[in-house]
Structures are given as C-alpha cells and as structure tokens.
C-alpha cells in the first residue's frame, strides 16, 4: 500500500514541477517591463498605460518576442525624450500565448481593466481576427505590425505591416519580368498562404503567367522529398514560397540536397526575414529572394540609428527585420497622432491620424485614412552569404495600400467586392 501511495506522490510531484516550471517561465516574461497595473492611478497620474500584447510563450513566441522588444524600445525612447504631452508611457505587457482566444481575452482586459490608450500587438491573422470584434466593441485602438493577406479594414485597427499589393503582387510582377512565367506555389496549409495563392493565381492569369502547381503542407511538416520530386517534374521557373515557421528549415535544407540551386530555380519567400535566416542557415538561402518593405541593410539615417540602438539594447548578434521595424515605428506613428490631437482619447487620436506620417527606418511612412493601412515602399531582396539582404529592386515611391484589390481589374473576383 505504502509503495502505491509513494508512486502516486512521485507522479504528482513531477506534474506539479512541470506546471510550476512552465507557469514560472510564463509569468517572469509577463512582468518584464510592465509592473502590476493600477488603472485608476495610471489614468489620473503622470503615466499613460499602453498595451503590448504578443505571444511570449508557445510556437509564435519565436517571432513575436523580438517585435515586443522593438515596441518596448520605442516606448522607452519616447519616455527618455520626455514622454508624450508631458506624461510618461507605461507599457502593460501581456502574453497572448500563441492562442487567438487568449489574445481576445487579453486585449479586453487591457482596454477595460488597464484602460490603455492603445495596444500594439498580434502576429497571426487568427490572433488579429480574434481581437478585431473586441477592439471594435470596446472602442479601443490596435496597431498590428505584420504583413498579412489583406481583404480587411477596421476603423479600430491600424495596419503597419504590408497588405498584398505592397508585398505579394509586386513580387509576382517582378518575377514575371525577371525570372520567368511558370510558378510553383508552395505554402503552409492555413489562411494566409491559401488567400495569398488565390490572389497570385488570379494575377498570373491576368498577366500572362502560369501556375504549374499549388501545394500545401501541414504546419510543422518536415519532409519535403516528395514536394521536391513534384517540383522536378513540374519544372517551374520559380517557386513562390508562403511556408511559415520551421517548415522553411526542412524545405531549404532538402532543396539544396536535391541539387536545386538558386540559379536553377529561385525561391521567393514572403515569410522569411533576417530573423528566420539565422535559424535556417544563410548558406542554404544565399541567392534566393524575399519580398518585404524593410531590410536591416536599408540605407537611411533613421535605420542606422534604429539598428544600432536595437543591437546595443538586445545584443550584437540580434538582427532587425520587417515586422520588428513595423512594431517599432507603429509607436511613433501613434505618438505623432497623439501630439497632433493633444489628447490620448481614442476617438481624437483616430481623427488626428489622418495624414500623419513619420520618418521610419524604412523611409517616410504615411497613414492612409481610407484603408487604415500605411504607405510602404516594396523591396525585393536577395539573400547574401552573411544572412543579410541586398535590395535588387524597389518601387520608386511608397505604395498606396489597397487591401481590397480595387485597383486591379482581376481584384473583384478575389475579394468578392464589386
């Protein structure tokens, strides 16, 4: 009997230890930067609470922690320069835990309990779609920093990442003009790649290209030998890659093993930035392409300061990337609107956002009141052996956002809007 009881205890102890370890790690990250929120004091005192809501745990933490870091840096910079309207910003950091439902709950808590003036956060489209009705109902304001599949406008969300006409569509046009007409579409099996590929197929049909195959693999898929066989038999001119996360590592490793180099069939990715290249291995990616609005190598004085500050704060081996930069300048864009409005009230800030622009590391970024997105330059970059991008093509001006594809003759059939 006693032995049985002992066994039970050891099992319990282990389970408890697991729970404590995980909860411990989670909470230690949560408290970083944002101490215990005291809404009434914050609202009336010298501090203005602002929400920072990213996945600090779970699968998405890989990407989101560095965006959170950049957002925190911008907030600290503004505070160091004397704050906003004579008040210091007080970040309230919450963990979305890679779970859309948690994102919805946490942003509700931030708006209702912490009474934040604005929230910066989100990465996956699922997390944004979960937060959208909450910010709209509670009349909050959310700055969303990641490129996505478009086809969305919310009066309570400011999209600082690219929509499709600022990333995917120009990339397809560039490929058609420079790399060939036959495209192999490869993506992870969820909403972003499927919507992106729907757009690409419509565009290829309209602009004289050809979709030779369209393949999806489950998130986390790690064996690409069969996909590579399909690539070999389809003989495309280029592979358009919308794979997300770890699958990219397996895909690029196995592509090289199969003897396919960037010279034979170049791959253009839209979810692989400097941060991801470090984990895949720069030598595997050298010569392949990506389409973004910002690279660490962008040559502006603002970017030089930004990269230096980021490395000084978080370590010299850290890199900046497109979503990191969008998470950074979003704070400044909001701060500009606050200054213009002379108030932290959401409605007044929203009204003031119209025509606000900031000098971001990527260049001048202007808010577009009609679509709630921002103007962005599009850059096609080629991966260098050191893991950085060299810009091989860019739009001359920042491109006006068009999330509903209204400016394209083939856009209506994709967006379903007349």
């Amino acid at each position, binding site marked *: 009997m006693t032995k049985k009881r002992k066994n039970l205890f*050891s099992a319990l102890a282990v389970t408890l230890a697991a729970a404590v370890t995980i909860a411990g790690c989670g909470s230690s990250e949560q408290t970083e930067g944002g101490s215990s929120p005291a809404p009434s004091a914050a609202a009336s005192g010298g501090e203005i609470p602002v929400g920072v809501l990213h996945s600090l745990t779970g699968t998405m933490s890989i990407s989101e922690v560095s965006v959170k870091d950049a957002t925190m840096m911008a907030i600290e910079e503004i505070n160091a320069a004397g704050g906003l309207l004579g008040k210091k910003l007080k970040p309230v950091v919450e963990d979305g835990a890679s779970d859309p439902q948690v994102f919805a709950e946490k942003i509700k808590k931030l708006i209702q309990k912490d009474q934040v003036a604005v929230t910066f956060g989100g990465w996956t489209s699922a997390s944004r779609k979960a937060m959208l009705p909450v910010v709209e109902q509670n009349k909050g304001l959310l700055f969303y920093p990641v490129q996505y599949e478009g086809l969305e406008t919310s009066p309570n969300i400011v999209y600082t990442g690219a929509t499709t006409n600022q990333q995917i569509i120009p990339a397809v046009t560039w490929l058609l003009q420079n790399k060939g007409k036959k495209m192999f579409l490869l993506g992870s099996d969820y909403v972003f790649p499927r919507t992106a590929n729907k757009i690409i197929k419509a565009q290829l049909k309209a602009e004289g290209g050809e979709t030779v195959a369209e393949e999806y693999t489950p998130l986390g898929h790690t064996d690409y*030998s069969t996909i590579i066989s399909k690539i070999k038999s389809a003989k495309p001119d280029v592979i358009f890659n919308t794979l997300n996360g770890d699958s990219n*590592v397996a895909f690029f490793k196995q592509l090289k093993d199969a003897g396919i180099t960037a010279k034979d069939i170049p791959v253009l990715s839209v979810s692989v930035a400097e941060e991801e290249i470090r984990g895949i291995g720069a030598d595997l990616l050298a010569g392949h392409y990506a389409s973004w609005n910002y690279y660490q190598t962008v040559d502006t004085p603002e970017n030089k300061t930004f990269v230096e500050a980021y490395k000084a704060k978080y370590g010299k081996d850290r890199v900046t990337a497109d979503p990191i930069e969008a998470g950074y300048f979003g704070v400044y864009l909001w701060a500009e609107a606050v200054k213009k409005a002379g108030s932290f009230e959401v409605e007044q800030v929203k009204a003031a956002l119209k025509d606000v622009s900031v000098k971001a590391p990527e260049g001048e970024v202007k808010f577009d009141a009609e679509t709630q997105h921002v103007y962005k330059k599009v850059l096609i970059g080629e991966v260098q052996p050191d893991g950085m991008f060299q810009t091989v093509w860019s739009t001359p001006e920042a491109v006006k956002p068009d999330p509903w594809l209204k400016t394209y003759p083939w856009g209506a059939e994709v967006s379903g809007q007349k």
Partner: protein
Amino acid sequence: MSLLLLQLFNGISVSSILLLVALGLAITFGLMNIINMAHGELIMIGAYTAYMTQQFFQKYVPEAYFDAYFLASIPLAFALAFGIGWLLETLLVRHLYKRPLDSLIATWGVSLILQQLARTIFGAPNKAVKAPSWLEGGITLTNELILPYKRLFIIGLVALCLVVIYLYLYRSRGGRNMRAAMQNRQMAACLGVSTRRLDAQAFAFGSGIAGIAGCAIALLGPIGPALGTYYIVDAFMVVVLGGIGKLVGSLFGALSIGVLNTAFEYATSATVAKVIVFTLIIAFLQWKPSGLVSVRSRSLD
C-alpha cells in the same frame, strides 16, 4: 521512369527516418510497455548535441577537422540521451511500471519541462546545424535522379542501429536477460536476473537511440525546442502498426507508412496523404488489432 525511382528512394528514405525515430520507442514502448511521451524530447536532446558539438568544433578545433564534428556528435548524443534516459528511469519511470496511464502523464510532464528547458538555454528561435561537407551533394544517376548523401547516410545509420540492436537483444547475455525479463519478470528474477538494473539499462538504451535519431534529423530539418513533437505521433504509429513487442514489426511498420505516405503524397497532397495513411492504419488495426507482426507469447497477454 527516373521520377518513379526517385519516389521509391524517397519512400525508403522517409521510412528510414521514421524507423530511426521509432527504434528507441520500440524498446521502451514495445518491449517495456512504458508510454514515454518524452521520447521526442530525447530526440531533441540529440539534435541539440549535434548543434553544441558543431559550436565546440568551430571554436576550439582546427578548421581542417571541422567536418569530423558530426561523427563525434553521434556517440556524444547517444551517451547524453542514454544518461538522461537512465536518470529518467531511476527517478520516475521505475515507480510507474504496470501503470501505463500514469506513465503517460508523468512523462508528458517531463516532455514539457525539457522543452521549456531547451527554450531557456538555447532560446526560442531555431538553431542552424551545418552539414559536414562530405555529406553535401549526392550521387547523380540521371538529371532528375539525385540521391542525396545525407539520406543515404541516414539509411546506413539506421541499418547499423538495427544490427546493433539485434546483436544486443539476441546475441548478448544482457539482451537475452532483458528479453527474459520482458516476457516473464518473476521467472527471470527467480533465475537470478537483476530485472531492476535491466529495466534501467533497456530504457536508457532506447533513449540513446533517440539521441542518435536527433543527430540524423538535424541534417534534414529544424533544430528547435518543439522538434520532438513533430515526430512523436509518427513514432507511436510505427510501433503500434508494426505490432508491440517485436522489432521486426517496427521495421515493417516504418516501411509501410513511409512508402505509402510518399506515394499518396505524390498522387494527392501532403495533407490528404496523411489523412489517407492514418485512415488505412485505423482500418488495419480494426482488422488486426495486434499489428503487422504479432507476438506469439502467453506472457504478454
């Protein structure tokens, strides 16, 4: 024609990886009846060992010998995973024999701890493992038919592991004692076999094989804290389909899942192929619940 051959090679290659991942599980789950949910994390430990060895060679060993790092990492990964497996058995699994559900929950806890530990030590983003130059490229038979050295190496590694496990289980004194203990614990103990030490030894051995699997996977896929979770379901599938308690079963299980999966994937898509294969496995297990190769022994009833 060459594409067909390539697909056949891919099928065998996928099977070999499945088998390598499942071999350790075939011992701990198949022979010892322990549901070890932390098996995937032992694979992860092997992969991080490869990464650490690479870092060590880059820093402290003359460049000319860098390519040897991978050969050094395999025994290291085995040793480290063996040690952690031994610890795990002594501290935890030992108290949970004959209680499969409790062992499932407890080892799942261990799996979460190990993942979080890896995240704390190495950080959440992936780490890049560079393949040694002698594994770059492949044998070019025709324009389309290139057999990558890495996959050939893995197939060879699996064959070697199989032979070693076979020799250990069927030709060594320790292995014979182990099989005796698995089949009839009381009787073996009566005959003077220290079943307690054997349990630890078998569990650690299975863990060590998982470490080797981690090294091999590091050549092909991502190295991250969640690495083990990608393979754990497939590994259990292989062992269950093959028939619990028989190593030969695992071999057939891995071959059928690997070859079928690649064939269906070529004909349909990756997602559909997984669905078809899982459906087939479920249907097969309805028809033959004990798997492809069943054990003819009363003691395991």
